[in-house]
């Protein structure tokens, strides 16, 4: 065994012991301190710990009776599944059932895509918008609800077989009335977001689109172009997850988020933990009467942690220099410009 492999084995073995020790001694400060020290001794240790922990969580799925049925957020492990019962038997063997299940997964994905390609474009449409800086709730003809953030515009077209909406830049929350026969499709920037009956939030700003799912599952797919590859499979996003697409780099990311915090804007609150200032300002400026700009890209990378109330954005802007090394100045056309505290006043 090479030295590197043996160090990896050592780290994984110790990580397994640490995982169980931390679980066994939840109140022990001593254990936590020694564990942190261990994590810092060798970068391989922290990595090994994460790999062991990921496996530990993956093992939760051994309890699923059937992996093809999405499990609900909280299900008690009161009854042993067939899988766990099998683990307790003298030996477990690979079954044919497993191969059948793999085949079923593939079939599902293909049929979802086939449905997708049957979609058509329709022309009749009804606009909905919040021209001012207030949030706005609208109910749609099918019983769905749309909650629009300030300065957000949505065009609704329910004329065809699908329920189609097109969104301007801004943010909107959709509570979709379930109708399996008519997919609910929101186009935001370069993406189409498809749902059947679910609750989700779409935010589209300057080439960055984020989709946050509160309930159910949505499928996200780039808007099809004539030359698009027909084998494209949509990204499927489940509850508690946020999907982010950046137009510039074409990069995508899926992370778990605190949905109540993402959706707090509906109650007039914007919550942030270590969010880049560019993002915060893009949100805040939906609730200001005048444009807000960041003068220097390096300021945009500063991070902000805290809450902004959408009905007092002016007060927040005034207080910003107390929190970050910036100054807030008046700009052109009655707007506001945020500059570095170090830069000269003009």
């Amino acid at each position, binding site marked *: 065994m090479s030295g590197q492999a043996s160090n990896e084995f050592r780290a*994984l*073995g110790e990580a*397994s*012991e640490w995982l*169980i020790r*931390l*679980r*066994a001694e*939840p109140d022990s*400060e001593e254990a*936590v*301190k020694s*564990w*942190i*020290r261990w*994590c810092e001794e060798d970068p391989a240790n922290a990595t090994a*710990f*994460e*790999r*062991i922990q990921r*496996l*530990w*969580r*993956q*093992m*939760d*799925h*051994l309890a699923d009776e059937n*992996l093809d049925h*999405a*499990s609900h*957020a909280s*299900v008690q*492990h009161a009854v*042993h599944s067939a899988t*766990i019962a*099998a*683990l*307790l038997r003298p*030996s*477990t*063997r*690979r079954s044919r059932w497993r191969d059948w299940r*793999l085949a079923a*997964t593939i079939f599902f*994905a293909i049929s979802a895509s086939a449905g997708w390609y049957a979609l058509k474009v329709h022309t009749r449409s009804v606009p909905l918008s919040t021209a001012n800086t207030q949030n706005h709730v609208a109910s749609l003809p099918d019983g769905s609800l749309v909650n629009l953030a300030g300065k957000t515009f949505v065009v609704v077209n329910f004329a065809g077989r699908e329920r189609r909406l097109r969104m301007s830049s801004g943010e909107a929350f959709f509570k979709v009335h379930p109708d399996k026969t008519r997919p609910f499709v929101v186009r935001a920037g370069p993406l189409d977001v498809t749902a059947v009956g679910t609750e989700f939030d779409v935010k589209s700003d300057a080439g960055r689109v984020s989709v946050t799912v509160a309930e159910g599952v949505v499928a996200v797919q780039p808007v099809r172009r004539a030359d698009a590859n027909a084998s494209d499979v949509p*990204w*499927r*996003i*489940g*509850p*508690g997850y946020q999907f982010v697409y950046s137009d510039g780099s074409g990069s995508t*990311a*899926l992370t*778990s*988020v*605190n949905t109540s915090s993402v959706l707090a804007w509906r109650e007039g609150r914007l919550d942030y*933990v*270590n969010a880049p200032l560019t993002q915060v300002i893009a949100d805040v400026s939906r609730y200001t009467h005048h444009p807000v700009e960041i003068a220097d890209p390096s300021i945009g990378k500063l991070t902000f*942690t805290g809450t902004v109330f959408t009905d007092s954005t002016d007060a927040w802007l005034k207080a910003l220099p107390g929190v970050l090394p910036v100054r807030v100045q008046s700009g052109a056309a009655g707007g506001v410009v945020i500059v570095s505290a170090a830069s000269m006043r003009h």
Partner: protein
Amino acid sequence: MADPVLDTTDDRPDAKRPCSADRSALVSTLFRDNNRALLNFLLTHLSNEQEAREVAQEAYVKLLQLDQPEAISFLRTYLFRIAGNLAIDRIRRHGRKERIDRLALFEEWATEPSVEQEVLAEQEIELIKEAIGELKPNYRRAFVLHKFDERSIAEVAVEMDLTPRMVRTYIARTVFYCRLRLDGVGHAEAHKAMMGIQA
């Protein structure tokens, strides 16, 4: 470590006493440097990442609200203590673990869960099942009792008539063995490595 303020080994209350204006900056630094470790720590108790993030946020907020200046000198120890207590409160409130959502399984591949990845994830579950099947019945029983029947290590020890130390060793070996088997290590080599964990 460069910054004595963040050194867990230094619990002297007089190490440094920054004024409260510095505190949010300190908490930001703490967040940047320790967030990964804190989430890893919380995930040993909570089974889902979103919950871990919520608890971590709550802990940072509590830390910002602390008013004893002494606390600052061992902020990190405080952070982990607060977070640990919040996690335990949460577990007690639920009375049980919450099942993670199926999609959490795909975090390992993070960016875009494709069909191939879903199939891969399912295959991994099968491989884990097979690996556990290769272990002695005592190991399997200790693992299942602790992982799926929500029994503490102490309770498993009583039930199986073993010392708690032995139970910990069995479960740690089970996890280690499965990790190695998933990584493609052979049965014999994985078995030998696993026995390196001593009671």
